[in-house]
């Protein structure tokens, strides 16, 4: 095939073709194809510079050539593609032809399929023709070994055989040897075909399963495998017998150990089976590392049912024992845990820590609200008067108002004038306030305390004992802390306090007001039941003298009791108060 480019026609500016010589830019195809491109059209020369007539002609020619050039290029590209693909196809075809032909140089007429198998420990070679139309009358088998050059031998017992198999147990005895076999088929005297094959027994031999019998019992199966009594030593392959037991989709393999040769009958027992179940058994040979095995057809047997009563009874007994044991274990575990205190701990909390009675809790435990009373404290400077263990009645208010008295017990008595806020009467009562540790400040002015009085209105002289009160359970408020003293504006200055009378002692001096005592008991506490006895038998007095301002005065919002709290810790509940004045039952206890 030869492609000629149109612009390769001879022209004034084109060179003639020379197929032998490769032209510059020529594209040569493979010699196999015999395709060769001629030439690449040369470059058109530009029009000459010269006469206008010549010039026009030259330009036209130039344009023509250019056009041809374009067309040629297009064709070339197309052709290149075509040629390349043609090239490829040819190459593939040729290689295939050569390859296939070389693969089977001489045996393109392989028309037989051979198979060699061990049946009852006899090597049987069988063959089959691929072309079923050829039916030979008899066959002939020849073989030789490959380890050394030997002539072909004919198998005598298969000479002119009509069967399509041959027993080669006596001929082929070695597994190391490679046997080249030639099978010839005849029809009369004419050779119809000739096949050959290279056998290597170690690889090519297939092992057919042996014959066996099964006998089923209640819970076991007896498998009897039949081996030939005489087995050739030479052909002892590395075989192992496998007995497969199948039941309800579960397959179990048994590999019994066979000592010595596989000869005679061999019995194997498959035990631990479930009665009244169908079991199928299959037997086959397994050869070392070969994976392809030929399994025997399954032989199934239904096991007879066992004695159910026995098994049921034993099962029941077993179940009961198991349950009992479990219960025993659990009980002992629980008892042990209880004993070591891990579970069920006793809650032996004291009663006070018993917070279960939540309903009564708020009502029981909350301290009662205390009425706060307004008290106006008026300082009165008094001279310090040292108690000279004189039990004279110091009920003289003036003398008392002079100075706070100190008691032997460390109490300082401050005279206070208590005046009810609602009354304008002159100070006629004064309450004495005892500050336990105010000895350091003897110059403290006395503070007049105005107390809201009883409805009677008669001012009374009261003595406030604050020291022991601090020992109370209920919060004691010292309405006259020391700082308050110092904070007085001056002698005679007025300070307004909120006094919680419930937290102070009041002692009524009964020299003047003894009448008043009975007449006008001063209620201090709104909760008579809050009276608590301090130490000392004398203090156990009935609380008929109580100061209460509840009914008479409005309750002013008072600062917290802590403000009025005395910072002096009460030393002890001394009995100075009782030793001071012999009032009899003049003490008011909280």
């Amino acid at each position: 095939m030869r492609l000629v480019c149109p612009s390769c026609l001879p022209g004034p500016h084109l060179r003639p073709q020379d197929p032998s010589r490769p032209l510059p830019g020529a594209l040569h195809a493979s010699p196999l194809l015999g395709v060769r491109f001629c030439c690449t059209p040369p470059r058109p020369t530009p029009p000459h510079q010269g006469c206008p007539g010549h010039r026009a002609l030259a330009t036209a020619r130039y344009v023509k050539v250019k056009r041809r050039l374009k067309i040629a290029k297009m064709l070339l590209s197309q052709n290149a593609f075509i040629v390349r693909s043609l090239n490829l196809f040819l190459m593939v075809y040729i290689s295939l032809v050569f390859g296939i032909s070389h693969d089977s140089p001489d045996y393109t007429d392989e028309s037989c399929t051979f198979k060699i198998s061990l049946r009852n420990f006899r090597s049987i070679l069988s063959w089959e023709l691929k072309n079923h139309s050829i039916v030979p009358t008899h066959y002939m088998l020849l073989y030789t070994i490959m380890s050394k050059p030997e002539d072909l031998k004919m198998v005598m017992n298969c000479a002119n055989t009509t069967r399509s198999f041959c027993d080669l147990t006596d001929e082929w005895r070695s597994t190391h040897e490679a046997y080249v076999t030639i099978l010839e088929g005849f029809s009369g005297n004419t050779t119809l075909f000739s096949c050959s094959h290279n056998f290597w027994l170690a690889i090519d031999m297939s092992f057919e399963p042996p014959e066996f019998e099964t006998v089923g019992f209640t819970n076991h199966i007896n498998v009897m495998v039949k081996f030939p009594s005489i087995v050739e030593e030479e052909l002892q392959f590395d075989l192992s017998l496998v007995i497969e037991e199948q039941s309800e989709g579960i397959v179990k393999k048994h590999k019994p150990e066979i000592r010595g040769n596989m000869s005679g009958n061999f019995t194997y027992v498959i035990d631990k089976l479930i009665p009244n179940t169908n079991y199928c058994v299959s037997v086959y040979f397994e050869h070392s590392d070969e994976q392809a095995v030929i399994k025997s057809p399954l032989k199934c047997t239904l096991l007879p049912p066992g004695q159910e009563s026995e098994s049921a009874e034993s099962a029941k007994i077993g179940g009961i024992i198991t349950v009992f044991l479990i219960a025993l274990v659990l009980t002992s575990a629980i008892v042990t845990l209880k004993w070591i205190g891990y579970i069920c701990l006793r809650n032996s909390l004291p009663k006070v820590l018993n917070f279960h009675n939540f309903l009564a809790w708020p009502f029981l435990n909350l301290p009662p609200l205390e009425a706060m009373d307004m008290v106006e404290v008026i300082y009165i400077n008094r001279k310090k008067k040292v108690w000279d263990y004189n039990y004279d009645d110091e009920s003289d208010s003036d003398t008392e108002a002079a100075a706070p008295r100190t008691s032997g017990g460390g109490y300082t008595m401050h005279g206070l004038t208590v005046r009810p806020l609602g009354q304008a009467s002159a100070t006629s009562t004064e309450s004495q306030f005892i500050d336990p540790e105010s000895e350091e400040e003897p110059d403290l002015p006395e503070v007049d305390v105005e107390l809201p009085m009883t409805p009677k209105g008669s001012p009374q002289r009261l003595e406030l004992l604050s020291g022991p009160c601090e020992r109370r359970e209920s919060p004691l408020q010292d309405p006259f802390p020391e700082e308050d003293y110092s904070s007085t504006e001056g002698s005679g200055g007025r300070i307004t306090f909120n006094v919680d009378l419930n937290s102070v002692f009041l002692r009524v001096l009964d020299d003047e007001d003894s009448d008043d005592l009975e007449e006008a008991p001063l209620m201090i506490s709104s909760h008579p039941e809050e009276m608590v006895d301090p130490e000392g038998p004398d203090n156990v007095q009935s609380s008929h003298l109580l100061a209460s301002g509840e009914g008479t005065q409005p309750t002013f919002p008072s600062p917290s009791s802590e403000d009025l709290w005395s910072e002096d810790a009460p030393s002890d509940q001394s009995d100075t108060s009782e030793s001071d004045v012999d009032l009899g039952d003049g003490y008011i206890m909280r």
Partner: protein
Amino acid sequence: MSTKPDMIQKCLWLEFLMGMFIAGTLSLDCNLLNVHLRRVTWQNLRHLSSMSNSFPVECLRENIAFELPQEFLQYTQPMKRDIKKAFYEMSLQAFNIFSQHTFKYWKERHLKQIQIGLDQQAEYLNQCLEEDENENEDMKEMKENEMKPSEARVPQLSNLELRRYFNRIDNFLKEKKYSDCAWEIVRVEIRRCLYYFYKFTALFRRK
């Protein structure tokens, strides 16, 4: 994602280390090596068998006897160590033969597998031999006095005979100019030799 290749790299590195570790630990045990050796040898035998489906009858004319050393065939209870040495030598020689000339490309795959298999065989055997060397040095002194007379009479397998055998094979190939028939004959011969050694690996196991 730039992190992914890093992760993969790390994983690969880990896998590699694990593989090395496992290979290292597994390779230490010679008994395990025997199992591998047996398996690899059988695979090689299969490859050698599957390389060619049928044997051309014409090649029988060119068949010669390579005379495999008879010591192999006569041993019933050979010395384990000698067999291993011989096996190692045989693997190397067979590898050399199969490497020197390329088959047609459609047999290339089988050839490569055989080469790999033979190399693996040699590797396993080498490791086992090294292990045995250390053991035998201790055992030798003990066994010197206990050596039975029958053992002394058994000739030691020499690698020289084996090398001569493979030289004959090689010469045959060169003589026949690496023809297909020659290759077929050589293939069958080497397979036969390998099968003998395969049978011997069973002896390793029993010992």
